[in-house]
């Protein structure tokens, strides 16, 4: 068990964490590169910068639009996001691990607030699952992935809370800790290859959407040619 | 030229010299490392005592060759031979190429393998002390006068005198008098000290002289190659021109 924990904290953590960071960087670079290439080839080079920026900002801080339609669900979602980002980033135990490993540390949450945020995140997450299941429209739009993500994001929070706050036998403690770490690492690996990549892509997605409609000149011919349907009615 | 004479028969292996060296040069704590050689020297141990069977203790340190291979090898002159004799090292010039370690016939320079900003480390015969007119820390610390400091000529004479007085005890030779151009750290001993250096044959030349002919051939080789190529170029062009003219004439 000890060796497993050491492995999960050491090499496995390095592997998954770097996959996450570089993977996100890769997605970002590839998308920007693609967008630039599309812009270079675009027939119509006029871009509605102002509109795109406003729309992007509106998506990043979605208070106005979100609360208009499903205020409760949106509030839960925002709380969930806050807990999801703040808790792991500013938890004392995590910072301690960083300091032991490479000697960097930063401000940490007080114990009480860390516990509070953890419980808040768990409740918000459960609320989001219920929200998805309850509304027929949302249920129809949801993929398996969407449920899976809510579920797997909650595992580290629940196990982390158990480890930090309850008196359990050392072997159970270690087992929960292992699940906590492994689930966290699974999340790391999946982030750059799934919808969670929106954490870095959000700011540029609006531009890419705008660009997508700027086809180069005579692109229709080329598409037809590629699909071997030249001269045929589309 | 200053020198150190070590009399192996007098050494009792107390390591006072090692301690004095560590203290004076402020060398850091050491521990066994994978990259050490088994002679006790390391980046943090500039001198060491090698124990050989039958209570023989041999102090190993930089030999301060009269014609040092390391000095001739160093591309940036970080190692230099000072007028008083010690071979000193200037870390400000070093680029970390470790060619001196390849060149040294005694395997003396050591490297800080665990340091992200690594330097060469070796004995400098306490050069700062010598400049002050003092003797090196190690010879000063020796309680039995097994290792003494002085002018090379005087020490050589002393060494020969000791050998002459007690020819049964000593091997009849001063180690470091002539080998590979001679060194400034001399030994007299009752056992063979060949293990202190790489196998040296009788005809092993003074090391800096091995590269000297090749190095002095550099300018002639450079311009010679240029001249040869120039000649070839002219010849080929001419051949081409003659061929072309012939073809034109035919037409």
């Amino acid at each position, binding site marked *: 068990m000890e060796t497993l924990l050491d492995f999960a904290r050491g090499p*496995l953590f390095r592997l998954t964490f770097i996959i996450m960071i570089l993977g996100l960087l890769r997605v970002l670079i590839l998308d920007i590169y693609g967008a630039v290439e599309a812009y270079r080839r675009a027939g119509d080079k006029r871009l509605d910068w102002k509109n795109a920026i406003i729309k992007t900002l509106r998506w990043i801080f979605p208070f106005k639009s979100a609360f208009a339609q499903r205020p409760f669900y949106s509030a839960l979602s925002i709380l969930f996001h806050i807990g999801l980002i703040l808790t792991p980033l500013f938890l004392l135990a995590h910072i301690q691990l960083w300091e032991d490993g490479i000697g960097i540390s930063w401000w940490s949450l007080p114990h009480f607030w860390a516990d509070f945020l953890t419980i808040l995140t768990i409740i918000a997450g459960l609320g989001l699952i219920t929200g998805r299941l309850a509304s027929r429209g949302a249920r129809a739009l949801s993929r398996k992935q969407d449920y899976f993500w809510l579920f797997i994001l909650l595992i580290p929070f629940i196990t982390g809370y158990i480890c930090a706050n309850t008196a359990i036998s050392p072997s159970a403690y270690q087992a929960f800790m292992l699940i906590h770490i492994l689930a966290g690492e699974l999340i790391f690996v999946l982030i750059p290859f799934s919808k969670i990549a929106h954490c870095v892509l959000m700011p540029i997605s609006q531009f890419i959407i705008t660009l997508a409609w700027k086809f180069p000149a005579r692109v229709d011919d080329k598409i037809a040619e590629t699909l071997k349907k030249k001269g045929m009615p589309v | 030229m200053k020198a150190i004479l070590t009399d192996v028969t007098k050494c009792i292996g107390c390591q006072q010299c090692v301690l004095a060296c560590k203290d004076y040069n402020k060398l850091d704590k050491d521990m066994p490392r994978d990259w050490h050689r088994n002679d006790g020297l390391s980046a943090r141990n500039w001198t060491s005592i090698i124990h050989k*069977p039958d209570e023989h203790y041999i102090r190993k340190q930089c030999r301060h060759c009269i014609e040092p291979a390391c000095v001739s090898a160093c591309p*940036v002159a970080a190692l230099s031979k000072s007028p008083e004799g010690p071979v000193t090292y200037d870390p400000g010039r070093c680029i970390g190429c470790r060619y001196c370690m390849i060149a040294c016939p005694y395997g003396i320079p050591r490297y800080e*393998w665990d340091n992200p900003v690594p330097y060469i480390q070796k004995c400098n015969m306490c050069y700062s002390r010598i400049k002050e007119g003092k003797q090196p820390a190690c010879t000063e610390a020796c309680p039995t006068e097994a290792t003494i400091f002085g002018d090379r000529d005087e020490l050589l004479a002393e060494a020969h005198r000791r050998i002459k007085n007690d020819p049964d005890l000593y091997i009849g030779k001063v180690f470091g008098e002539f080998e590979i151009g001679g060194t400034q750290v001399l030994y007299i001993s009752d056992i063979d000290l060949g293990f202190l250096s790489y196998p040296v044959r009788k005809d092993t030349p003074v090391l800096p002289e091995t590269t000297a002919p090749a*190095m002095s051939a550099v300018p002639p*080789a450079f311009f010679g*190659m240029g001249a040869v190529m120039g000649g070839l170029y002219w010849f080929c062009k001419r051949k081409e021109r003659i061929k072309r003219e012939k073809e034109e004439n035919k037409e």
Partner: protein
Amino acid sequence: MDRVKTFKSILWALTGLAIAFGITRMFFGLGSVSNLSDATPWGIWKGLNVIPGIALAGGGFVMTAVIYIMRREEYKRYSKITVLLAFLGYITAATALVVELGLPWMVWKPIIYWQHHSALFEVSWCVMLYLTVLFLEFIPVPMEETERLAKLRIFLNKYKIVLVFLGIMISTLHQSSLGTLFLITPEKLHPLWYSSLLPILFFISAVAVGPLMLVLAVMTMSYLYRKPLEKDKMANLAFGFMLVLALYGLIRFIDIISAGKLPLAFDGSWQAWIFWIEILLLLVIPVALLSFKKMRYSTPVLWITSISAVLGVGLDRANIAGIMLIRTGPVYIPTFYEISISFGILSAAILVFLFCVERFKIWEVKWEDPLEKPEAPPEFGGPADVWLGTPRIAGRTVYSLVFVLALALGFAMISSERIQSAGVEKVPASKARGGDTLFVDGNLDGYGTMFAHEDHIQRFGDKKSCDLCHHMNIPLDKHSGCYECHRNMYTTADAFRHDWHASPAGAKINCDKCHQPGVQRTASSAKTCDKCHNDLVAQNAVIKFEENEALSYTDAMHGLCVSCHKQKARVLEGKEDLDRCPTCHKVRDLESIPSEIKMQFIDTTFNHVVIPFPDLVNRVKIEAEQDG
């Protein structure tokens, strides 16, 4: 998958791994990734990348001489590729040097600090000058992409012949000076390789192998991109330089025979075997196969001969730069990290090569990337048949993914042990042998001391005296042995169990119980154990509790015994010898040691000098047996 795509993916993966290890090397020193040592200061990076890399880049100057000076116009279409090969060969060597040099940011220093006796000084100048020349020779090719720099391009092309001359002259010096490097080691290099002709031998072999490297590169290109091969030209080129290779063999054997070293080649040692392998690869195979006109023009023969010659010259350089240098330490076996960095640098260079071939007019005409053929079908991938863009974008997606995964894998593979205590010999301390007299010898090397345990107990007042020395004990164990906490022979060990103290089932205490809030949390700033466990250290204990970390075993043992012995030596009549090393480490007569050499030595330096006499082991063992 496509040939090119597979090949490039592998190269990207190797590059990623190497970058991870390279970063580690930069931050934690050479010892953290390599097995280089004081006995083997130059390793695989020199032997595989730097020195052979430059030999194989020799094609640059040889082919420019053939094309521009001997005016063999039929090879002109290979001029750009050969310059590119040489350029990348030198870049490879320079990159390897950045990893290999201890202080790579000082690499420019030979420019200002001159030392013209040094062969390495000449080498570094040649590298810098020739890199510049190669750069100027190659730069017109990418310039063709844009019209803006046309004037400069035309200017450079107009005076190309000057660059060609300079390149040849500098290369002559450089190839030979690499041989000069090893002239200074007559007593270290194996006689079969050492020769005063080394500079000349290096030069000739580089002249011969450079063009064969070009043949290999061209054949690889034609395989990867499915282009027809100009077999007759390649064969003629290989044949021509095979003659140079034969000349090299002739000179080398005449040199060996005239120096009377030939018997060494038949003495059955492993060096002799490697010598014959080298001769087989470098001389026998190419010369034998290329001599026959019929075989010369077959593709397999060209493959075999070019690969064999390239490997042969690589082996020759590796032998001289490392394998055949005498060592006194343990045998040098490069670590996985070292090998990986070596291959990573090569892979990156090949990737740049392929990029240039695809992107620029290296072959006089621009090579179409097969991934961007207009008739190539669009690629779809993944379960949802997501459109991956044009095939080229699909390639980009794959390469970057492979690269990221390899880089992460590389970081995961770095052993934290190597980084935290690089090179420290891991010696776990062991329990002292029991009985009235303990044999205190933590690393079991026989170099220890007989400790009269029973005697000490009686002298200090029976069972009550245990906590004099046993200053701490672990739960459920009274008077734990020293090794329980001082677990490592030479490095400090952590005696504090964070897991247990923090766990709700254990002590269940918060971090700030021991670490003051606001202060950096380290072992030294934390509250010491005896603040809570006040029974851990007795009032009259010899060692007061000062640190949270358990000292190394050697330091702890010396610290415990020596301080007491020193004190007693001063107090007790007739026991002045107590504070002398040989009192405990019995190796020689006390009488022969002058009395002024006392424990004062060990007392101040037990931190410093660790192994005084490695070969005392057997003697102490015998004494231990005699003592019973």
